[in-house]
């Protein structure tokens, strides 16, 4: 059942810098890696099992505070690494994506594209956002930068599609294999008659769009059916009793929630706190007033501008 998740926070918040222009944005994932159906592991009596860690030498369970991370070196030894050390090495979380280079987006090889995120404007004024989006989309350009997301540094390509900015994470060069590195040899020369025959078939079977309806997890659906029928018939059903049902993790947010949050963010339905407005410089307030089409703005003082904006966005 889709949950109402109005309060869902963005995956990342920060700014995109484009020259000296900063565009406040909120980033949301375009995809969720989620199982269509997750099954529990049970004992033969129907009790959900617990996962424990055991030291094979002592054959005893170990607690979380008795466990450390280790890296296996080439000679089979383990080097201990503390969480604290990794934290100190971790790059500082980015607040800004600084676009210093723009490239023809068709120059980015397909294999480099990794995860995709959508960006929604996070300020009242959408002007800078729209300017960047338009500039990128018109000439099929991408802005390239590096930034830190969740403790990892990534190369990112900022693109625009249909007026919506996207952050496409890119892989590092050593993460992409080439046909040569795999050992795929030199290709053969193709027979023209064979090629023509295949081309004809391709043309005959071309459709306009991707069949999204077909991209469903058939196995999960079949299983769900089987389980539903058994539940209805009361077959092999174990009541859970006092045991709590396991709750989903934060990652189990459904795509439908994401769509709602994204749509709201992109339409700009946000409440603005009055106190923040009066702390902004006058030229920023003037711009907001311009955006909102507030009349008489050129003769207003800073306070008057703040008040007018408040009223207009209430």
């Amino acid at each position: 059942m889709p949950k109402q998740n109005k309060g869902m926070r963005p995956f990342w918040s920060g700014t995109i810098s484009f020259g000296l222009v900063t565009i406040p944005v909120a980033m949301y994932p375009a995809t969720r890696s989620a199982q269509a159906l997750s099954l529990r592991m049970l004992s033969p009596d129907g009790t959900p099992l617990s996962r424990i860690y055991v030291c094979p030498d002592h054959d005893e369970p170990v607690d979380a505070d008795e466990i450390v991370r280790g890296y296996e070196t080439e000679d089979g030894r383990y080097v201990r690494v503390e969480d604290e050390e990794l934290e100190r090495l971790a790059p500082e979380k980015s607040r800004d994506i600084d676009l210093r280079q723009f490239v023809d987006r068709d120059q980015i090889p397909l294999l480099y594209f990794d995860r995709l995120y959508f960006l929604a404007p996070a300020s009242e004024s959408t002007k800078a956002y729209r300017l960047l989006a338009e500039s990128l989309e018109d000439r099929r350009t991408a802005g390239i930068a590096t930034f830190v997301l969740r403790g990892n540094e990534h190369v990112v390509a900022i693109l625009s599609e249909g007026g919506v900015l996207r952050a496409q994470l890119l892989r590092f060069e050593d993460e992409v294999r080439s046909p040569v590195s795999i050992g795929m040899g030199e290709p053969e020369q193709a027979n023209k008659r064979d090629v023509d025959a295949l081309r004809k078939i391709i043309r005959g079977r071309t459709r306009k769009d991707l069949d999204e309806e077909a991209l469903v997890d058939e196995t999960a659906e079949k299983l769900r059916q089987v389980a539903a029928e058994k539940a209805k018939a009361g077959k092999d059903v174990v009541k859970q009793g006092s045991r709590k049902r396991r709750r989903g993790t934060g990652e189990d947010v459904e795509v439908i929630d994401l769509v709602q949050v994204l749509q709201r963010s992109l339409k700009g339905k946000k409440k603005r706190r009055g106190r923040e407005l009066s702390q902004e410089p006058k030229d920023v307030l003037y711009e907001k007033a311009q955006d909102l089409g507030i009349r008489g703005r050129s003769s207003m003082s800073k306070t008057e501008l703040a008040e007018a904006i408040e009223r207009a966005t209430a």
Partner: protein
Amino acid sequence: MAQSIFNGTLRLGEHAVAVKLYSAVEDRRVHFRLLHAVDGVPVRQRMVHPDSGDEVPRDEVVRGYESEAGMVMLRDEELEIVTPARSRDMEIEYFVDPERVDLAWYQRPYYLGPGGDPGAYAALCSALRAENKLGIVRWVMRKKVYHGALRSLDDHLLLVSLRFRHEVVPADGLPAPSGRELTKREREMARQLVSMLEGDLDLGAFEDEYRERVLSLIRAKAEGRAPELPKAKRKRKAGGLANALSASIEKAKERKVA
């Protein structure tokens, strides 16, 4: 020669092309094992009954589906029935223009190398390139049904697995942010700035520095040396748009001249 993940046969009408599947990406992440702090021995995972603490062997574990009525236990035979039959067939169901498939659908890329007749492989590759189309493929691998987009990449075939519908936010449903009309001057300045910063892409210039630092730390520890620490980063301020754009263009001009 890399190890192939799967050997299959692409099918299109009566045409059959034997292929071998290889991962097109390399996992370079630093992987750790969990060790027992006291003796440095890697720990093992066990699934146990929460009451007794006894391990339940793998072949006695039952899968359960949580429903409103309670936990539904699923028998092995029931799971078997819904599991797709093993097959080498990779059916090319239809073709579509690459532009019509949003990158959000793309999951994992694989190279397909010839697994039999190299002539048949070459012909399919040439035909796909000439028509500039993606072939949508359905196949079974690792007991699961996969869908993928087949395309030519120079003289080789690339197959990118596609995500399920429930995993993707449809981009065409998203409204573009709106606001007051952008002025000609603003558009001009933005375009100027973008074109001044335009250049050729050099992805080789980027490195996963965090990964390198972690590996350095590990090397240092393995050799009994002390590791190092990185520096902190600066911040940035905002201002009025038009002024900022002008200032940016001036700065970019200076940089070009220098």
